[in-house]
């Protein structure tokens, strides 16, 4: 039966639609290698990837939240708080593994608190996670007294400085997380329900989906990845900084959006997100190599995000005879 076969993706438009952002990334890399001969060295590429890893880890959880139709502004602060608490435990003589697990647990817990208020308090995610962002940042400052906590523990250093074969540990963690998230979103029942909730919450509810549970789950997952990013960053810096992770949530959201995930939920993928994270990372790297001031880097980042998303919109909406054209303008009909 022909219906059983997945839809063929032969048309060039569909190909572009699926791989458009990957093309943007490759074009950027091509341009970068023309502008700077240091770009395509293995040393530099490894360096970029290591830098991308932390944002990519955060963005994995962010993708899940945004797919469900929410947003999580608290990830940067949660990262800082988990880092501080973990560093504190190790500084007090605690076991590194216990500390790491505690960091993951704390992140997950804070995320679940977000989810609880979003789901059962029926508050807008923007407000709830904004409150958590302030709360967790404040708690970090209280806990650290505003001073960094140094971490000197050889085993713990692995997360930021170790490697698996030739692959740096943060990158390995990133790859494993993305594989797990990919399988979770595409193959598991819960993953499917996240798309359903993001696509149409009322329909999901009326189909017996436990929407509140799904919401708690997605924010908990985002908290978990924030905790993981906290481990890697603390390890990399040999210390927990009270201001660590400031505005990281914006980079994570940018990566998700660049990756083609719809801010209104229901459509998107982690494969897109990792491409988005690399676009942001490589942009910063190229500007560094070209000795552009970091002030201008933010300006450039803003422009690139806008242009890339605009391009994506054109790819999705454009073209006569595209069914999708009928979808988008429905709101403005008549």
């Amino acid at each position: 039966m022909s219906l059983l076969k997945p839809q063929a993706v032969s048309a060039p438009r569909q190909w572009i639609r699926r791989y458009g952002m990957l093309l943007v990334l490759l074009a950027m890399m091509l341009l970068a290698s023309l502008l700077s001969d240091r770009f395509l060295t293995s040393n530099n590429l490894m360096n970029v990837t290591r830098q991308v890893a932390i944002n990519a880890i955060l963005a994995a959880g962010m993708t899940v939240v945004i797919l469900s139709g929410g947003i999580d502004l608290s990830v940067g602060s949660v990262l800082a708080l988990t880092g501080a608490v973990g560093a504190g435990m190790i500084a007090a003589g605690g076991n590194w593994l216990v500390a790491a697990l505690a960091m993951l647990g704390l992140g997950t817990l804070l995320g679940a608190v977000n989810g609880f208020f979003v789901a059962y308090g029926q508050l807008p995610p923007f407000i709830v996670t904004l409150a958590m962002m302030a709360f967790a940042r404040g708690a970090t400052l209280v806990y650290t007294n505003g001073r960094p906590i140094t971490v000197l523990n050889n085993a713990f250093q692995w997360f930021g400085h170790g490697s698996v074969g030739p692959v740096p540990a943060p990158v390995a963690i990133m790859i494993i997380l993305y594989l797990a998230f990919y399988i979770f979103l595409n193959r598991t029942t819960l993953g499917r329900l996240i798309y359903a909730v993001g696509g149409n919450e009322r329909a999901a509810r009326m189909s017996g989906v436990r929407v509140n549970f799904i919401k708690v789950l997605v924010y908990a997952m985002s908290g978990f990845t924030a905790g993981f990013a906290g481990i890697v960053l603390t390890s990399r810096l040999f210390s927990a900084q009270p201001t660590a992770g400031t505005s990281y949530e914006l980079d994570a959201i940018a990566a998700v959006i660049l990756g083609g995930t719809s801010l209104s939920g229901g459509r998107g993928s982690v494969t897109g997100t990792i491409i988005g994270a690399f676009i942001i990372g490589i942009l910063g790297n190229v500007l560094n190599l070209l000795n552009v001031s970091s002030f201008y880097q933010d300006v450039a980042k803003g422009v690139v995000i806008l242009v890339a998303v605009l391009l994506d919109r054109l790819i999705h909406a454009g073209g006569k005879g595209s069914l999708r054209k009928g979808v988008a303008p429905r709101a403005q009909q008549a």
Partner: protein
Amino acid sequence: MAGISKAFPGVIALDGVDFEVRAGEVHALLGENGAGKSTLVKIMTGVYEKDSGEMYVRGEKVEIRSPLDAQRLGIRIIHQEFTLINDMSVAENIFLDAMGSRMLSWVPYRRMRAESRELLKRLGLHHVSVDALVRDLSVAEQQIVEIARALREEAAVIIMDEPTAALTDAEVERLMDIIRQLRASGTGIVYISHKLDEVMAIADRATVLRDGRLVGTKPMAELTRDEIVRMMVGRPLTKLYVRNHKPTSEVALEVRDLSVPGRVHGASLVAHKGEVVGITGLMGAGQSELVRAIFGAVPRSGGEIKLHGRPVDIRSPQDAIRHGIALLTENRKEEGLVLLLSVVANSSLAALEKVSRFGFVDVAKERRQAADYVERLAIKTPSLDQEVDSLSGGNQQKVVLSKWLATDADVIIMAEPTRGIDVGAKAEVYALIDELAGQGKTILLVSSELPEVINLSDRIYVMHEGRIVAELDAANTSQEEIGHYATGGTRHESA
């Protein structure tokens, strides 16, 4: 419009269709779902661009490339879903486009209110203040505001897409008056509806499309109902209603004294295995809340629900589904489907665990199940991976049905299962209801279409202002009797 064609990937939606509307004419546009009506309308209103063909307005050749072009040429559409701004006043909504094109001037409130009042009066909406918020109006009133807006812009052609889908009989009557009035003042009206009685009453001419082709345009006076149906489906429709099932006397569902604060007051009903039980009444009489409460989707303040003689505690849709109850809601786009997801994903949504193992979706099994339903329910879709958004109304409804069939529920509640779907798809839904009852399922059919309720049900409950006021034997009742009870008549008077 002459020789209009439009192709989508894999489908030719319109193939050389000619269509014209004269000034001062009501022209019905008919066809089954997927026949090309909406595509034609979308080309007229600039939502889609045509692939080929020519369009003329008042004899002049025009190109309509955007909704704005269409508006400038005086083509307006009134949808089932309105395009009013809920938090603005009636007057502001009527003048919305005028404000949009003169953004830099002061808002001429005095003139706006006066002209709006005039328009509403013309349309017989005396009792609504032009300062009222659209949010606070009834659906019928909002529709009239839409028409007022079209009138203010002196629309040459007004397209009405299923305008009566959400109206009561009295409101439909008033709309018909308004349409006659518009016709008399020279406006051309394109009238799209699945309700053939209405179409035959109001339209001057009818154009029928089938599979993207023009079947014909004829004066209404020369057409009979059967002829229209034959043109639409391409074959004489032998029987709309089938009834082969035989209800048993085994009680499947029993509801006692169920109340929903403010909406349902102490409703009791029974439904047997293999029985189709109709629940009807005027819009807002509490039918929808009653079945939602049974399904656990709205909280009930009291009452007992028994399934197969055992009391069950249903507090959420999950509970209901676990106990084998399904609810097909009356608004498939809002509550029935996840429009962004594929046919497969939608059809397995309510029973995902049935195609899952250890928390993982068994994709092959899921696709096989969906393919089965696509075949069994004759769902027309280019592929299983098609997003349901792009399917026609009837096919979307079948996807919702497949979702509930997949749960293997034995009590299936269907609220307005044929709303906004064409005759052919209706007949298929009716046949399916009969088939399900024949398999021993219990069907609660909530519908405001009396012929449907009478012809499919075994017994009928009539609701009025939140109470069940009558229980009737479908074989021995009439639309008049049901109408009598639905409007608050008592048993005594009816005799």
